């Protein structure tokens, strides 16, 4: 249990401000990769995903833990540091897991036509993260960008729902990238 009490931000106001700025940069410029550091969450959570949870989640944001991420160590850590209610996929504002265990994606909120902001934000843990792979075009990208997405079809289907849809952060170690619903994705 004591492991759950450590690993949070040492200086929450400043560290969460720096973490949010990095999160804002990756979300507003899809394909770019930024460092997210400052927290030491328990395994299997990566540093970047842990920082995102600390920066964005609190008692008002229901969080879904998928697959191996729904473990006692992580539940305790998140409960102590954020107090986010841990819920089923369909009730979640945030979802945390690897791509395989987040399936099927149809369970997550995509917003409603008059409030498209009421949609889930995924934090997807990746085995690797690099600026190579699928071609990205859209807002935030001057011409085109590349990102190692876990697949294409799901993001193409998500883009087709615009302005509805979910938004994704991708994390690996202390690095993060993002893909908002507005990005058009195609194979190279």
């Amino acid at each position, binding site marked *: 249990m004591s492991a759950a009490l450590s690993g949070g931000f040492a200086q*929450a*106001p*400043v560290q*969460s*401000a*720096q973490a*949010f*700025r990095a*999160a*804002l*940069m990756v*979300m*507003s*410029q899809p394909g770019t990769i930024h460092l997210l550091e400052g927290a030491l969450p328990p395994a299997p959570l990566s540093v970047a995903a842990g920082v995102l949870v600390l*920066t*964005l*989640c*609190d008692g*008002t*944001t229901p969080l879904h833990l998928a697959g191996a991420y729904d473990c006692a160590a992580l539940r305790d850590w998140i409960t102590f540091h954020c107090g986010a209610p841990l819920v089923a996929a369909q009730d979640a504002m945030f979802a945390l897991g690897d791509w395989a265990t987040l399936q099927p994606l149809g369970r997550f909120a995509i917003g409603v*036509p*008059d*409030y*498209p*902001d009421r*949609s889930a*934000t995924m934090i997807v843990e990746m085995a690797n993260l690099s600026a190579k792979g699928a071609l990205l075009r*859209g*807002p*935030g*990208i*001057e011409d085109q960008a590349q990102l190692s997405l876990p697949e294409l079809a799901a993001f193409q289907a998500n883009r087709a729902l*615009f*302005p509805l849809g979910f*938004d994704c952060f991708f994390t690996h170690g202390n690095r993060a990238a993002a893909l*908002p*619903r*507005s990005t058009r994705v195609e194979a190279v």
Partner: protein
Amino acid sequence: MTLHADPVAAESYNFAYLDEQTKRMIRRAILKAVAVPGYQVPFASREMPMPYGWGTGGVQVTAACLTPDDRLKVIDQGADDTTNAVSIRKFFQRTAGVAVTEATAEATVIQTRHRIPETPLTSGQILVYQVPIPEPLRFLEPRETETRKMHELEEYGLIHVKLYEDIARHGTIATSYAYPVKVEGRYVMDPSPIPKFDNPKLSGSPALQLFGAGREQRIYALPPFSHVVSLDFDDHPFEATKAPHDCDLCGADDSYLDEVITDDQGSRMFVCSDTDFCRTRQAEGQLGVLGAPVLKGGV
């Protein structure tokens, strides 16, 4: 100019004034605003230690974005030295301890009231707009339930009727500020009351543009390089207009001008509304017809 906050004063506030829970709420709204460009995300706007209309929305967005490493610039109608700009700049010096500047190129975060700086913005910069009425359809349809439905259905005929009535009455589109735009082919957005001279700078900007409306409790955004089109008609295309003069101080013929009445005999002068742009040009030795004498006079 770089000033650092009094560390004692800074310690009496949480970093950037707002509490952490509030900043998380605003940050989540900003991320959704970025994901759906042009859509107004509702947020739980807080009371700030300044009146509504003084930029409480912009201040909250700036507070949620600032880091201690930032260099902040605040402008009011292009000017760094007006009451609104000075008080907001001092507010963040005191509560966030950030460095400040008046130079557009040196700033990492720029909070603005009703202007986009003349100096082109660069990648990594954030431009935060203070927005009084975020809803472009509000003066055409007062009911929030209806305007929300109109955005949902992409039913923007009414705003074209408004522009058409301009043409029918005045022979031209008379809307000169807060000129409505369409973002990424989907949402019609109020760019805040910037002069329509600034509208072309909204599109394709390398900087991230965030809009905060405090009293109306809305945040919206334009990610870098967003495609933004000012609404118009084929036979009455959009025109970015300005006073047909050169700046009397720096001689610029391509900047937005303020008209200044100089006496009660009807004398007037035109000066750049962007004070940093104008001062930089004068420092480079480019002077308008009134440039040198006015400088000696101590303005």
